[in-house]
């Protein structure tokens, strides 16, 4: 009897021990989370393209961007994996995948170590992101340069009383993506995705370096950096390949100094960005500056209306026989941001950009709204006008289009 009781006790004890072990394991176990979005995009071009082979009016595509996230040690260690893939109806270049993020972060009290493929954004202005330099532009996603490719990096971030210092080692360079011949929103001559050349003998294996400082002082948020490595902007040179002319990509080495500041004073946001870039081919300064003013609760509603004005200048100017110049060299931008502050977070942005050296302008409307709990619908309109053959917009002057996006978040 006693023995049975003892056995029972032992069994109970063992069960209890196992139970608590499992419980503690579960408690210390990694937190895992799967989220992300899938989307459908429909473009409609009002006119036929300027070039043969270009799709005529309609372009459909779908994409998926899941995010897998693990965390342990109470969030001090995290791991994120965010792949992306888009399938386009016509353009094989636009049908593409990318690892947007595959990174490990260890966070301590006053420092962080981030390793892997990541995205880093710098800057304060809205119509052009001059100082944003770490990630390469994913040019097939959209023509506005807002989409970026993941960049492999080792980043040590130190939090000091006098600001945050970020040190970067950037091994491995990503070439810019360009749309294929069937796509609209491209120049007359196609960019060759082969025969890419580099100034550095290391090619796309060059180890780039950057150091960035940021600090908030009273109403001012300041950022400044120095970058040394492969220029993210390729030099495009026309060459004859077979019976076709194509643009070959060449990436030189650059040193770039960047500085940005935003002053937040009542309803005003004053924004300023500048860069100085030096390469073996040219040296230049460029600046983007302006303001944003917000009217709160207009017409006795809850809607806010923001007004934006920015000006872009580049010391390279508009270009001549010897140099290609800059795309934003004497350009002015006006915008209005309308936030309805409703349950569906309805928003609208209207923007107008005008090149003061050429007779060209671009106009855009971006509107979006949430439907239900998990859908987001966006409607974009882009109008492009140019009568000057030397202007970069001339190549896309017939590409006015409407774009409908439906995204489902999970």
């Amino acid at each position: 009897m006693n023995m049975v009781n003892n056995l029972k006790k032992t069994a109970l004890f063992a069960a209890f021990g196992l139970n608590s072990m499992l419980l503690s394991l579960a408690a210390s176990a990694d937190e895992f989370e799967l989220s992300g979005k899938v989307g459908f995009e429909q473009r409609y071009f009002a006119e036929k393209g300027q070039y043969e082979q270009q799709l005529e009016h309609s372009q459909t595509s779908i994409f998926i961007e899941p995010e897998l996230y693990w965390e342990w040690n109470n969030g001090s260690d995290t791991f994120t994996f965010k792949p992306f893939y888009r399938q386009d109806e016509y353009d094989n270049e636009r049908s593409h995948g990318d690892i947007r993020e595959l990174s490990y972060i260890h966070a301590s009290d006053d420092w962080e170590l981030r390793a892997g493929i990541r995205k880093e954004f710098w800057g304060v202005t809205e119509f052009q992101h001059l100082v944003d330099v770490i990630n390469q532009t994913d040019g097939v996603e959209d023509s506005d340069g807002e989409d970026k490719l993941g960049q492999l990096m080792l980043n040590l971030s130190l939090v000091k009383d006098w600001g945050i210092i970020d040190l970067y080692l950037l091994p491995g360079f990503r070439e810019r993506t360009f749309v294929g011949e069937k796509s609209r929103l491209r120049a007359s001559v196609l960019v060759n995705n082969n025969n890419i050349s580099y100034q550095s003998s290391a090619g796309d294996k060059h180890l780039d370096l950057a150091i960035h400082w940021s600090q908030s002082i009273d109403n001012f948020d300041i950022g400044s950096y120095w970058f040394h490595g492969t220029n993210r902007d390729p030099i495009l040179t026309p060459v004859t390949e077979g019976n076709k002319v194509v643009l070959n990509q060449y990436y030189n080495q650059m040193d770039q100094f960047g500085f940005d500041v935003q002053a937040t004073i009542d309803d005003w946001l004053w924004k300023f960005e500048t860069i100085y870039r030096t390469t073996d081919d040219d040296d230049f300064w460029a600046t983007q500056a302006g303001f944003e003013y917000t009217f709160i609760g207009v017409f006795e509603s809850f809607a806010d209306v923001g007004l934006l004005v920015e000006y872009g200048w580049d010391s390279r100017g508009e270009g001549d026989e010897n140099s290609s110049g800059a795309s934003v060299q004497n350009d002015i931008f006006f915008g209005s941001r309308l936030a309805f502050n409703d349950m569906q977070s309805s928003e609208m942005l209207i923007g107008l950009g005008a090149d003061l050296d050429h007779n060209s302008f671009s106009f855009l409307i971006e509107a979006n709204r949430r439907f239900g709990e998990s859908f987001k619908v966006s409607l974009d309109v882009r109008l492009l006008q140019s009568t000057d053959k030397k202007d970069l917009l001339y190549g896309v002057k017939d590409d006015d289009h409407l774009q409908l996006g439906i995204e489902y978040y999970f």
Partner: protein
Amino acid sequence: MLNKQIITSLFTTVALSIASYSANATPLEKQQAEKLGLEISTQAKQRDIGWVDNTSDMLMLLRNKQGQESTREIKTKTLELLDDGDKSLTIFNKPRDVKGTSFLSFSHAVGNDDQWLYLPSLKRVKRISSRNKSGPFMGSEFSFEDLSSFELEKYSYNYLGDEQINGLDSFMVEQVPVDENSGYTKRIVWLDKVEYRVQKIDFYDRKNSLLKTLTYSDYKQYLSKYWRADSALMLNHQNGKSTELKWDNYAFKTGLSESDFNRNTLKRAR
């Protein structure tokens, strides 16, 4: 701002004077009403000092007149600072399209707060203007000022009398915002006499008509001192919409420090 140590030293005298005045049934002189209103509010604030830091999960249920619902899931971390306004980090989990968006705020009792917003899809930290106090928070019936911490300097006060509310004997205090950017001409606040917990608030719009009523329910005590409601309901009388708040996982003195509130933690917050 008023030093919280001074408030602490006021504590005993305040409690005594309130006890004697509330027994007084005759209408009060204007000066007396102001003094009492401030004393009651000071007492409420004084009882809620010293919690050091706090984390909680908040669920927001937005309902319109047709009964359609929308959910917001928010996590907050707050650090109490005795010589300045609190520092807080607000992390959005739902709706899904704003998941990972986070908001860093350094509040100040006087002047504008410092606020930054992190947009995960762009990996961008934006410093934003904090002047928009009257605008709706995430499309709800709460405005930004409704959700900011209570600081004595934000209002002038008037004691209006006593009333039973939620079955509790309560003080009725009128609070007139000092800030001209406030969306209200006044708030009328009911605080129960035993624990000085806010039971109900009536909000009056810029035209001085009743706009909203906020009622708190299911108060629980933490660390044997600090009272927090489990839920609250904001009803908008003018548009028929309502927003319900439900709090969960309240924790105090979790070991947060100033190093948990900067651009880096803002970008990392989940």
